[in-house]
């Protein structure tokens, strides 16, 4: 097992799993901090993956594919905003509806646009190639992890400090935090919390869209029904665990991404798939339990004089 962790090809596969989780979780962080209970990241991610394939197939450029993915995600964000913010629908109900909608809609569009069932692959889908980072090759473990990945991985890494700065120093970041903590304060200041939350949902859609693009035009060059495969849910867990803080999100995304990647690996070693499929969720439970113990320990100490 240890041997496996230091296998360069395993290390190189980790970012492929980290990227979609991290991007979706950063999007989820925007909603979390803005006070929107968005657990539709799975649907946003799936829609992004599909839109990426559409954009890339018709334009021949992975970048336009990524742009299409962002637009697809934003569209889902707008659907969420319409039903939750404007019509006052319960966020859990709206989320579940969007997750189901995304699954159905992508399957339907797959048939309508590409006349394909279940999966669609075509040489015309232009995918992201690896970006070579000079000077990293000789490093053990870190070299393969941080070198030769898709541009979306580096984008996701850059997005972490940017998000941190955004929440701390940006005008909209400040308002997003206010919308999540005491929206009445925004109203008193003449700013509509609903509008702030709309922006958060749109940003969330764009980031989830990029995460979807990583799944469909960077990890592979194809779309498969329901290919987000629970990563949106893992992103939701990551957001709730970190309360939407970007740096801890990076850590959690790496933990989940590594386990996700590992589960594929051990499957290749002959472990039954039913078991390996459980691994990311077992890891989630393990993190939840560890964190709750740690928090309990802290509050017990913090309560003493």
């Amino acid at each position, binding site marked *: 097992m240890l041997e496996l962790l230091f296998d360069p090809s395993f290390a190189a596969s980790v970012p492929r799993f980290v990227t979609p989780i991290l991007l979706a979780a950063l999007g989820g962080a925007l909603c979390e901090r803005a006070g929107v209970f968005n657990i539709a990241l799975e649907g946003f991610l799936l829609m992004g993956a599909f839109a990426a394939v559409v954009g890339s197939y018709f334009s021949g450029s992975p970048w336009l594919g990524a742009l299409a993915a962002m637009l697809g995600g934003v569209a889902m964000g707008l659907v969420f905003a319409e039903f939750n913010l404007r019509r006052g629908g319960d966020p859990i109900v709206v989320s579940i509806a969007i997750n189901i909608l995304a699954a159905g809609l992508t399957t339907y569009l797959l048939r309508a646009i590409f006349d394909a069932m279940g999966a669609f692959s075509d040489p015309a889908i232009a995918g992201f190639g690896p970006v070579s980072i000079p000077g990293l090759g000789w490093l053990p473990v870190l070299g393969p992890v941080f070198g030769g990945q898709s541009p979306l991985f580096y984008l996701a890494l850059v997005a972490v400090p940017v998000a941190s*700065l955004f929440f701390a*120093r*940006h*005008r*909209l970041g*400040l*308002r997003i*935090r*206010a919308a999540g*903590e*005491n929206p*009445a*304060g*925004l*109203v*008193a*200041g*003449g*700013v*509509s919390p609903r509008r702030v939350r709309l922006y958060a949902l749109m940003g969330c859609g764009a980031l989830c869209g990029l995460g979807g693009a990583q799944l469909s035009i960077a990890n592979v060059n194809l779309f498969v029904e329901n290919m987000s495969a629970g990563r949106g849910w893992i992103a939701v867990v990551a957001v709730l665990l970190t309360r939407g803080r970007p740096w801890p999100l990076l850590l959690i995304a790496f933990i989940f991404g590594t386990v996700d990647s590992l589960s594929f690996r051990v499957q290749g070693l002959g472990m039954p798939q039913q078991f390996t499929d459980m691994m990311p969720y077992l890891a989630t439970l393990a993190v939840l339990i560890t964190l709750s113990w740690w928090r309990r320990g802290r509050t017990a100490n913090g*309560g*003493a*004089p």
Partner: protein
Amino acid sequence: MRVALCGITVRFGALTAVEDVSLAIEPGEVHAVVGENGAGKTTLMNVLFGLVAPQAGAIRLDGQDRRWTSPQDAIRHGLGMVHQHFMLQESMSVLENIVLCAEPAGRFGLVDFSAARSRLRRIAEQHGISLALDRPVARLSVGERQVVEVLKMLYRQAEVLILDEPTSVLTPQEKDRLFATLRSFRTAGKAIVLITHKLDEVMELADRVSVMRAGRLVWSGRLSQTSKEEIARGIVGGALPPARQRAVRTPGEPVLAVRDLEVAGRSGAVGPLSLRVHAGEIVGIAGVAGNGQGELIQAITGLAPALSGEIALCGRPVTHLDVERRRRLGMSYIPEDRQRMGLALGATVSENANAGRDDRRAFTRGPFLDRAAMARFASGLIERFRIRVGGPSALAATMSGGNKQKLVVGRELARNTPLVIAENPTWGVDIGAIDFIHGELMRMRDEGHAVLLVSTELDEVMALSDRILVMYAGAIAGEVAGTEADRETIGRMMTSRAHQALPEVA
């Protein structure tokens, strides 16, 4: 800037909250708007600030008609409002709170905090305000939070400042400091609107007074043309209730005994605290909100566990009993937050009136509730406590604040328990209801019940208590006999540990 409200009328459904009110606010003046809760003061100011659109009437700034579509319009034209409930973000720093919604943004929309900082320093110097800009608001006292709210308006260059009940949460010293700042604004030519129900403050600070009752403007003019008594009569619309006579009583057995109690608090532990409340006395706990009163009450009622120490009720240890057991042993509790703890707003008056009753058999028939008996009981309460409501089957949410509180007070006092705990029982209710609730608490005392009163309104504690305990920073900072209480001494205790030398208060 000269502001005029002309013929403002606001209706909420069938209720007319403000009817044809006109008044003028002049620069360099403090204009006090007084009236009972529900008289329409706050609604009127919400109109001025763009939070409520009037059905009729106009707002004029320097002679020009204005129409606000949102508070943003009002803010842009130089109006600023400090709301009764602060609108601050606890997790943010003072500086972040002040710039929020008026951020000086540079490249990429990044907030230029250093520009804001230097501008604030100038403003603070001009008006003699001192405050650390980088402290998180969560760590500020209520008085400091108010300073943040005031700075927020100044930062937006407000020319007209509206303050809604600004002193209700302040110590006397903090109030003095606020008034000094407001005087400095007046000198600087700003117009200040002070919404209040405290007449002493009106007499101290105002240049002009407007009295409102039941949505109408009763009187408006210079302070020098009227008197405190006249204003008071205008507020209640008739003769004032006579001052309460206090029957002399010797307190009996201790009903509540708390020894060395420690409770976990939001910022550090509360305690160790010891106190006793005897039959036939009202013990008042004064102090600025957030000094451990809430934690103390939660531990006594059983809502929060005690870390150490003992609580005895009627001579029986109750430290490890749950809320229900303690209530049955003889405890009633009027909680501070009637909206969430005191009442179930989505339930009917009758259901609320019967919540937590001991003699269940009188209100059930077999396994079912006896709705008729419940309604009879609720009607009794409505009549006895003069609660203005449609009837027992009306939803609790439909009542006004004062009537909600009367329902809570009525339900708890009707249980006739040896111990009554009242936590800010008159918070946000009108003068009539305050007088009534005070009367009921006094009646309980005179009938030999033990009353523990926690209030952030010093006047209330002083008017009712036989003994006054002052809490500061989680400890009892001092004790004063009710007859010897004066505001200055208590005010000092509210902010210092100087008098904290009381291992056991007998």
